[in-house]
């Protein structure tokens, strides 16, 4: 795949803290996982790319405009049914009512929650809520899906289910850009790893190489600490 996003000298300062420090990056892989220690600036980088935050300096250069969607660590469910939560995202994109309804149901079926469509979303389990959140973005058929630690607060079974769904979305051609604390998950999903440390890009490496021969000391330390 060709480079779809070039990041040029991106920086974000809050107060006197450099959260993102002079980041330049070319993203070409279809599935990229951003790794790094806590507080390295992973989530912030994703938010800058998604447009939720505005950089203090630098720029994002898109090869072509991509429709994006984002899944957060903690799913935000509106106080309505699971189905209506999925419909809500579609409605905001201006789809007709019948289209919304049909696509939302399809999407819920994809994440295996068709049977819970009419249940109040807030009363679903954490894993089910995250799957509704995935259904909500899947229905939008984004060209780029950003996920910020989507399985961080889930039990192993739910994590696996979410991972399966991410893989399926990726299989439909959507670009994936995500962060995770789960190195096994990173290994299974990623083609390429971006390793970030203290707001700077330490290295950008194909996944197999990253886990066997990381190029930087920071990444080596990180892997040693995180791996059992």
């Amino acid at each position: 795949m060709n480079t779809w996003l070039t990041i040029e000298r991106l920086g974000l300062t809050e107060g006197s803290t450099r959260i993102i420090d002079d980041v330049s990056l070319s993203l070409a892989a279809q599935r990229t996982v951003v790794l790094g220690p806590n507080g390295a600036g992973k989530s912030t980088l994703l938010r800058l790319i998604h447009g939720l935050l505005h950089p203090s300096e630098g720029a994002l250069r898109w090869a072509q405009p991509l429709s994006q969607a984002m899944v957060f660590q903690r799913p935000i469910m509106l106080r309505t049914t699971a189905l209506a939560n999925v419909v809500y995202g579609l409605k905001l994109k201006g789809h007709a009512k019948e289209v919304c309804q049909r696509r939302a149901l399809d999407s819920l079926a994809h994440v295996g929650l068709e049977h819970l469509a009419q249940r109040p979303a807030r009363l679903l389990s954490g894993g089910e809520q995250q799957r509704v959140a995935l259904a909500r973005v899947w229905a939008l058929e984004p060209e780029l899906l950003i996920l910020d630690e989507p399985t961080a607060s889930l039990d192993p079974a739910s994590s696996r289910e979410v991972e399966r769904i991410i893989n399926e979305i990726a299989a439909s051609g959507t670009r994936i850009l995500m962060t995770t604390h789960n190195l096994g998950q990173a290994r299974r999903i990623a083609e390429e790893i971006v390793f970030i440390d203290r707001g700077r890009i330490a290295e950008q490496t194909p996944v197999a190489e990253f886990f066997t021969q990381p190029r930087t000391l920071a990444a080596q330390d990180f892997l040693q600490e995180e791996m059992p």
Partner: protein
Amino acid sequence: MTEFSDSFLTAWQLLAASDARLSAIVLLSLRVSLAATVIACVIGMPIGALLAVGRFPGRRVLIVLFNGLMGLPPVVVGLLVYLLLSRAGPLGQFGLLFSPTAMVIAQAVLVTPIVAALTRQVIADEWSEYREQLRSLGASRARAAATLLWDGRFSLSTAALAGFGRAIAEVGAVMIVGGNIDGVTRVMTTTIALETSKGDLPLALALGFILIAVVLAINAVAYAVRGWAERRWG
């Protein structure tokens, strides 16, 4: 302390006799204050939500203004509405003074800032939680405000109840714009004021007990409904 027990007794007797005049007064109180609260919610809640979610010049000033107006003295509101609705005033041609409609207007003016300010607080809390998700889905600020109003409906019931409580308890505004006309604009609070004037303190206090009971009953029902709805929707 005999005054209190006398008043309790009087209150029970009034309730037991289900006096037609008393129930008419209680009903008028409820109707006027309910209508005022509904109007205040229709106006105040969108204002509160936009103040919480919006980004526009003067927003902070407006927030301070609405917070300050929560303490608006009822007499001042009554006087303002009186001057507006008086025959010599700008809206005099409609002849609304000394009617329940005038009382609804005055109480709506009194209560709208309360509803708006409390709504702003509720929605601001929700907004900090929902903000990224809603923006990510592409919701405009106006759309986000509408979504949060609906999503926060259970918490917002507290704002509505606070407004209603203020409306039904105030006497200054309805006394001035309603005139406490027997059978037309006489409500619980103005009746209490009148009976106090007549020196019939036990009766005034008994009516006060009934007013408190009515307000408590409404709050209890609202609380139960809210609890049920929250269990239903999470």
